[in-house]
């Protein structure tokens, strides 16, 4: 399937997914992740930014048994298999929430706001949820 798509147009754009909302309280975290997974088949140049409450999407130790919702956090670890490897966390958001890179269940690059700004400016398409 992917070979056909490459033959067709071959357009590769830089897609940025901006994740700013916490998991479970709303569905945005889960459903935006679903876009990333489906989108992976299109072989675009994908980056994910976690900022504001979005940093909570990738914290370790999520146990959803008590709220009877699916724990989808392991899916972030599967992103690598889909060639989605550019994961960034905004330093200010992380620190404001008393978190550090050790709290995350995936490898991320921590960038400060200025670096995040540069990264955002560099993209072609920005998806917000």
């Amino acid at each position, binding site marked *: 399937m992917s070979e056909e798509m490459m033959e067709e147009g071959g357009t590769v754009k830089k897609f940025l997914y*901006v994740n*700013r909302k916490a998991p479970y309280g709303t569905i945005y975290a889960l459903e935006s992740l679903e876009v990333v997974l489906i989108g992976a088949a299109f072989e675009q140049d994908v980056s994910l930014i976690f*900022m*504001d409450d979005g940093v909570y999407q990738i914290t370790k130790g999520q146990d959803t048994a008590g709220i009877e919702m699916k724990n989808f956090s392991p899916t972030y670890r599967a992103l690598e298999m889909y060639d989605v490897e550019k994961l960034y966390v*905004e330093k*200010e958001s992380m620190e404001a929430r008393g978190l550090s890179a050790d709290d995350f269940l995936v490898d991320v690059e921590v960038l400060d*706001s200025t670096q*995040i*700004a*540069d990264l*955002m*400016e560099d*993209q*072609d*398409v*920005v998806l*917000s*949820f």
Partner: protein
Amino acid sequence: MLHTINKSPFDKGSLDSCLRTAKAGSAILFIEDGVYAATNGTAVAEKLKQAMGNVTVYALEPDLKARGVADKVMDGIKLVDYAGFVDLVAEHDKVQAWL
């Protein structure tokens, strides 16, 4: 880049997050409840005024009028209608929605 902000600055931190990461030369358009940030004498006025040194700020006039605050807009903020919104999208290379 064109940044759209649709929530009141007193309700959500979207304005702060946007201002932290908006590069000089970009544009911010307040829409829906976001237009309250464009009104005079608010707790965010100073912050916004400072940002206006680097970014161009717009507000969607139909949303200001709907909320009865169209006559309270800060100096320097440009009002646009939906056609103007479309023009802004066309003029900037991409749009980021701060939801």
